[in-house]
């Protein structure tokens, strides 16, 4: 059987084949979960928000006109729902969030900096764990979903230059960490 595209699945769901919605869930659940989890930094909250996102998307399928890609439309729901959850838990998250103007600082107070080389993966995880929600969203959409800065700007409802700033700052932060951990020798 030929693989149905998103619009075909949506049409089928609109005709009353609710179980076909599972196909859409399967298509987006892991990447959407990655984004939500990295924005919220909490697995249980991320699971709840992911469910809410799919239910919201289902309830609003009528309003999806197909002017944009379903993925763009869906990730707007994901991003906004996650931000709402963060708003609810603002006090907890506030300490972790950094304003856009601030320089990202990923220094680990427990890190042994006596020349011991860290695994690249470990460093990457450290950076991602500390990324503020909007940075995490950009990194996920750009590298996992392979979306362009234009598409991401639609999802985040911001300008393309702002998306690029978030992307570049995240790269610069990881670069700084690689340098601090003396991993530059592997580059040559």
């Amino acid at each position, binding site marked *: 059987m030929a693989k149905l595209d998103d619009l075909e699945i949506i049409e089928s769901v609109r005709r009353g084949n609710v179980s076909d919605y599972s196909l859409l869930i399967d298509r987006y659940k892991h990447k959407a979960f990655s984004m939500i989890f990295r924005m919220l930094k909490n697995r249980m909250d991320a699971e709840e928000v992911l469910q809410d996102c799919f239910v919201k998307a289902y309830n609003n399928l009528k309003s999806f006109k197909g002017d944009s890609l379903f993925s763009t439309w869906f990730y707007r729901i994901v991003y906004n729902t996650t931000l709402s959850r963060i708003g609810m838990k603002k006090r907890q998250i506030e300490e972790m969030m950094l304003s856009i103007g601030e320089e990202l600082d990923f220094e680990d107070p427990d890190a042994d900096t006596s020349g011991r080389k860290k695994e690249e993966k470990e460093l990457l995880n450290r950076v991602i764990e500390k990324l503020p929600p909007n940075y995490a969203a950009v990194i996920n959409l750009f590298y996992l979903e392979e979306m362009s800065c234009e598409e991401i700007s639609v999802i985040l409802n911001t300008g393309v230059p702002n998306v690029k700033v978030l992307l570049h700052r995240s790269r610069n932060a990881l670069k700084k960490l690689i340098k601090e951990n003396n991993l*530059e020798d592997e580059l040559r």
Partner: protein
Amino acid sequence: MKHYNDEFFNKMIDGEVDDSTRREFLHHISECKNCELEYLLLQKAHNSFQKIQIEEAPPTLNMMVLKRISRVVKPSEGGKKFFIGMLIGLTTMLLILFGYAFEVGKTLDPKDQKPLIDFSKIDLSFLQEFLNSFKSFSAVFTPEFGGTLILLAVSIGTYFFVERVKTK
């Protein structure tokens, strides 16, 4: 000697630099070890992000979402459809039974004490006659048919009234 910064390196990685600037930069880093190192570090950061892993969503997600969707949307609509379908089915059965009883009644002799329904006398031609009655538009609106329609309308109305009272 002009040196380059992270902003430029990011543009290089994103392919936003024109050919001549790119050539100029590549020539520069062949001589400037510091700029080369900074560029390679950023390239490494970019490559690392490309290896970012997908977090697995919980395996019960589909079930939970479909359960929530059907709980919110399906029951009332499904219930209505089922009820209306049942009413239409029952009405059709009543119409057939009325028609059958009417046809059998015509053939019975009231003085005869035989059972009400003599199965040996069952004649399926009444079905044909019943269908024939629909050939003419005016023949459809017999008193029996009108009564059945009223019964159907009252039943549907009662159902919606009860539903409305329940939701309030």
